[in-house]
């Protein structure tokens, strides 16, 4: 008995230590170092002076109007994108788990956009929203809808939402598919024997049993949308007039363009806390609603 326990510990160590080692070196240590730098006024070059400024960087944050408007834009973007991605992902998942003959090819096609890197995706859609939309507008005369979306602050944000939805929905769909497939057929059959229709089955049987999937999907979309950078960079570059500058890009600009390493670190830390709190609240809420069979 004891020998067995010892061996279990051996296995446990074998599988956790490498991961722990990597996690500590690439996440924990840089995080602590970053926290340290956020108290300095520094441009990131070791030979250049670091000036200790205490909490000045954090105080400065609250009067930074550009960071403020970035926060608002990121929140708007995240809210709309999370809802859209999950609605579409769920709808796709329901669609390709029916007896549809094209379900396999459908899954592949819907998942495909996720396989294209965000940067390339952004450039492709930049062409569509820019040149293609302009040309369509000229040909059809529908210039109210078809114009260069990327030159209008509201439509540029919408374009960003559409592209990220297009990219993420297929991925989220896969998670929902596994959730749906895990629901035992007997439960569905029992429900239909009791006379439940499509909607009733969906809302009373499938959704409660899908709650673990909702937890994962909402968590992933929330954190991914908050952290969006690649599509942002290639599609709009933050423009026009910073209307689509998201958190990550604002921090990138602060550190690498304006050389304010310490201030950028302070921003990144606040950003981290915000994302952590929001996703933790979301996970704790949806976790509570999970039911076990």
């Amino acid at each position, binding site marked *: 008995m004891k020998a067995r326990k010892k061996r279990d510990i*051996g296995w446990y160590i*074998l599988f956790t230590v*490498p991961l722990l*080692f*990597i996690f500590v070196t690439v996440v924990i240590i840089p995080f602590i170092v970053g926290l340290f730098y956020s108290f300095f006024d520094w*441009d*990131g*070059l*070791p*030979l*250049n002076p670091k000036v200790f400024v205490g909490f000045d960087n954090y105080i400065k944050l609250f009067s930074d109007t550009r960071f403020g408007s970035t926060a608002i834009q990121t929140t708007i973007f995240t809210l709309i994108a999370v809802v859209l991605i999950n609605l579409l992902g769920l709808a796709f998942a329901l669609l390709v788990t029916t007896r549809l003959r094209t379900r396999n090819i459908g899954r592949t096609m819907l998942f495909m956009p996720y396989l294209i890197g965000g940067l390339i995706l952004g450039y492709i859609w930049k062409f569509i929203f*820019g040149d293609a939309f*302009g040309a369509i507008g000229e040909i059809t005369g529908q210039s109210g809808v078809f114009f*260069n979306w990327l*030159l*209008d*602050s509201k439509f540029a944000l919408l374009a960003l939402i559409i592209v990220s939805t297009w990219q993420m929905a297929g991925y989220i769909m896969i998670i929902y598919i596994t959730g749906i497939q895990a629901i035992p057929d007997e439960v569905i059959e029992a429900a239909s024997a009791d006379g439940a229709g499509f909607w009733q089955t969906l809302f009373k049987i499938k959704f409660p049993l899908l709650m673990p999937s909702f937890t994962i999907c909402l968590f992933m979309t929330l954190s991914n949308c908050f952290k969006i950078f690649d599509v942002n960079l290639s599609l709009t570059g*933050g*423009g*026009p*007039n*910073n209307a689509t500058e998201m958190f990550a890009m604002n921090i990138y*600009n602060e550190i*690498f*363009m*304006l*050389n304010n390493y310490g201030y950028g670190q302070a921003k990144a830390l606040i950003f981290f806390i915000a994302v952590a709190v929001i996703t933790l609240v979301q996970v704790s809420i949806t976790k509570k609603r999970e039911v076990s069979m």
Partner: protein
Amino acid sequence: MTLKKLMSLMFVTVLAATTILAGCGNNSSSSDSSNEKEGGGAGKIVIFQSKVEITDQMEALAKDYQAETGVEVEVWGTTGDDYFTQVKTKLANNQGPTVFSLAPGGESDQMSAYLEDLSKLSFIDKIVEGMTDEKDGKVVGIPYTMEGFGLVYNKDVMDMSAITDTDSLIGFMVDEKAKDKTAFGLSEESYFLIGHILNTPFALQEKPEEFMNAVIAGEQTITEVKEFQEFAKLYAAIRKNSYNPLEVNYDKACGDLATGKIDAIHQGNWSASMFADYDMEFEMSLAALPLVGNDKLAVSVPTAWYVNSQADEAEKQAGIAFLEWLYTSETGEKYLMDEFGFIPVVEGMQNENLDVLSQEVQKYAEAGNTLEWATNYYPAGIVDVYLTPIAEKFFTTEMTEQELLEEIQAAFVEAGK
């Protein structure tokens, strides 16, 4: 049974260990090579430079250099856009190249602690005055070439002797617009959109650097200065009489000029290579942007060579020897002039094969008819992070000229903090 389990356990352990070791291995091997680079000294130097157009030629030069001197040269590639971030990160991590390039001014100021003193190079005295980059009285940067920007224009349609000030340029734009043509346009890239054209009003001040520092400090307004007012006026005229620059990229703007769709763009002699692909039916040239009657071309050194002061002594000497060779040997000169197409910056060098735009730059430079690049004094990152959004706003809304200048001024104060 137990043996089998033991074996499998061992197998997994070995697998895990190799993964970890392989991970570390990569690191250690790369640090090894940098150690070797540092320790081995004169045997090898690394060059990292920002001019993407000459990458292939640099590779060829590396081979020739090794053949002549026996020193191995490794050339690192870059995509261009984020070169400065890359070189900065590499130098900060002590994995820097031996010889690298920077834009003299803002960039080299920030990196000054990393720049080796190059005053001992034999050809320093022969470099055109004011073209070396000096820090604390020491020469640290050797110029690549000189570049100039202004109006790249179609000589058949534009008569520059009639276009001598802001009003006549705007007048020409209005006339062409009436004929359904476009006279003058910008393109969407940050420097081509606002960075370069905003140079002119700054450079036209009596003391551009002091003037800009006063603006950054908030002591000087630009809204009341004539050069800036005319700049805003020109900008508004572009909004009114030209295409939206946000919809046109550099390639398209150059193509439109080459095919006769636009009469002039605000570019420099670097764009000559863009036109080489076109069969042009007209002659083109480069002229000063005639803001407030200006007739001087903005000419300066876009990039300069530097040697990494943090490398060890032998490597530094090898880097310096490379620069010495590049500017004094026959092969080096051949590369600078014929292969890179540079405008000579060292006395005694001549380039017979300059393109039409570079010839123009050389003419302006020889006549001393040049403006500074005040862009070199811009606060770091201002063009991409602050000025471009303002220009985007200007070209997509009804923003007034006054508001434009106010926002630009606020941007300088903000970015210079």
